[in-house]
Structure formats: C-alpha cells, structure tokens
C-alpha cells in the first residue's frame, strides 16, 4: 500500500508538479472547448490559450504573493 502511494505521489509530482490549479485550469478549459465545439457548434480555438495564459499568470501571482512588499 505504501509503495502504491509513493508511486502515485511520484507520478502526481511528475506530471502535475507544484501547482495543481494549473492542471485543473487546462482540464476545465479543454472540457469547455469540447462543449463549445460539439454542443454549440462554435470553433472555440481561442478558449484554451486564453485560459492557459490566465492560469499561468494566476499561478505565478500565487507563487510570488508572499514575497511582495
């Protein structure tokens, strides 16, 4: 059980890394993109880049917030 947990922790750290919120942003943005394309018929190619850039900025802001004056 402990070995399974450490393997899981390794892969989580390997793919997701320091900020899980970035991963959530990517997954939710892709789900929304699929919804736009398949349910609404909108070719929402712009949605993922916008969400990724916003997510990166949000993550950087959180990472540096405690170090500001």
């Amino acid at each position, binding site marked *: 059980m402990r070995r399974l947990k450490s393997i899981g922790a390794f892969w989580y750290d*390997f*793919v*997701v*890394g*320091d*900020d899980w919120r*970035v*991963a959530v942003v*990517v*997954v939710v943005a*892709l*789900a929304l*993109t*699929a919804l736009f*394309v*398949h349910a609404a018929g909108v*070719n*929402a*190619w712009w*949605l*993922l*880049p916008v969400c*990724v*850039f916003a*997510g*990166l*900025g949000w*993550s*950087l802001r959180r*990472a*540096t917030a405690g*170090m*500001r*004056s």
Partner: protein
Amino acid sequence: MTALPLILTVFVACTVEAIEALTIVLAAGLTREWRSTFQGMAVALVVLAAIVAVLGPTITLLPLTALRLVVGTLLAIFGLQWLRKAILRATGYKSLHDEASAYLREVAAAKAAAVSSRRGVSDWYAFTLSFKGVLLEGLEVVFIVITFGGNQRNMGAAVIGAAAAVLVVAVTGVAVRAPLARVPENAMKFVVGIMLTSFGMFWGAEGAGVSWPGHDAALLVLVPVVALVSLGYTVLLRQRPRPGLAAPVAHSSEEVAS
C-alpha cells in the same frame, strides 16, 4: 508538420535532462568507481529503452483524436510546470538550478557513503546513484519522446532527437570531465516549456474538436505568442519590489533573453 521542429524540441528537452543526469553520473564515477557507475547507467538506459519500445508502438495504436486530447492535456500541464519554474527562476523567486553546486552536494554524499558490494556490483552506492539519476531524468525524456513521437506518428524522429542530445552531452561530459555548469539551463528550460505548452495546447484543442485557423501553420503563431506572454510575465515579475530577496542576478537575464 515536418520532422525538424519535432527533432529540435526533443533534442533541447533531452539535452537539459541529460546534463542533469551527467552531473549525477560524474559525481558517482569520479568519487566512487566508474565500473559500478557505468553498470547503473547501462541498466537505467535499458529500462528507459524498454519503456519506449513498449509504450511507443502501443500509443500509436490509439485513435488520433483521443491520443491528441490525452497527450495534449498532459503536455500542456507538463509544459506549464516547466514554464512556471523557468519564469520563477529567471525572476529570482526560485534559485537557479546550479549544476556545480548540485555536483558538490552529490560528491559530498558519495564520499560519506560506505562501500558495499551486492549482486555482482562492486560498489552498490555508485550503481544505485547512477541508476536512479539516469532513470529519473530519463523518464522526462521518455515522456517527451513518446508524446511527441506518438502524436506526430513519427517515433523515429523523436528518438533521433533524444539520442543526439544524449550523445552530445555524453561526449562533452567525457571531454571536460566536469558538470556542464556553463550551459544556460534555465533558458533551455524556458524554451522547452514554451514548446511543450504550445504543442500541448495545439494537440489538446484539436483532440477536443477544434479546427485551428491555418491548421498546422497555427503553431507558427501559437509558439511566439506563448513566448511573448511568458516573457511579459517575466518582465512584470522583475519589476516588482521584493524585500528580503536578492535582485535577479545578471546572468539570469542573459539566460532568458538568449
């Protein structure tokens, strides 16, 4: 898309990882024993090659849309992780990865460890240090090779890029017999983060059903836009006053700008 961007991206990503693995291998070999170090490295390379040999052909059997969605998602998340770290390092919020100090730490630990032989290996510490270092750094290489190669249906080109990087770093390492501390590692990680994030977004969105304007040519816009946004965040973070933190050192600006 031609094979060249694929080979170059894999080459740069693998060079960074190979440099980190080289630091560990040199620390084990120069302070302990070369034979056990090479044995550890060889076993790790066999394991990595086996992973590529098994997963590579398997992943190409998946339908392209599903493959692009899964791989694009993973690549975008993975790439953003690299990019985030590279930006934090370039702006002084995170210390730069320093191969020289990493090497000294490994050397100190290697000198302190006792010598013991096991399973036909004369120095078990040197073997495991080298094995773990090459395997862990190599897993990131394997991930990039499989995802890029699988998505482009060109595993051979991805393997060529990775093999060339390992060869270049190994030959250089043997020639200088020291960690490659002067390589602009953070700048390379910055570039790789941009490439992984761009390709991840491109493939992920395609997998979700999007048709990019200009099709593959959209990448020619997406990559520079990701680079510009990342550099923009870097500039913004550098302009912030940060008490208790040293100002970003001069070479970090060279690294990102280069």
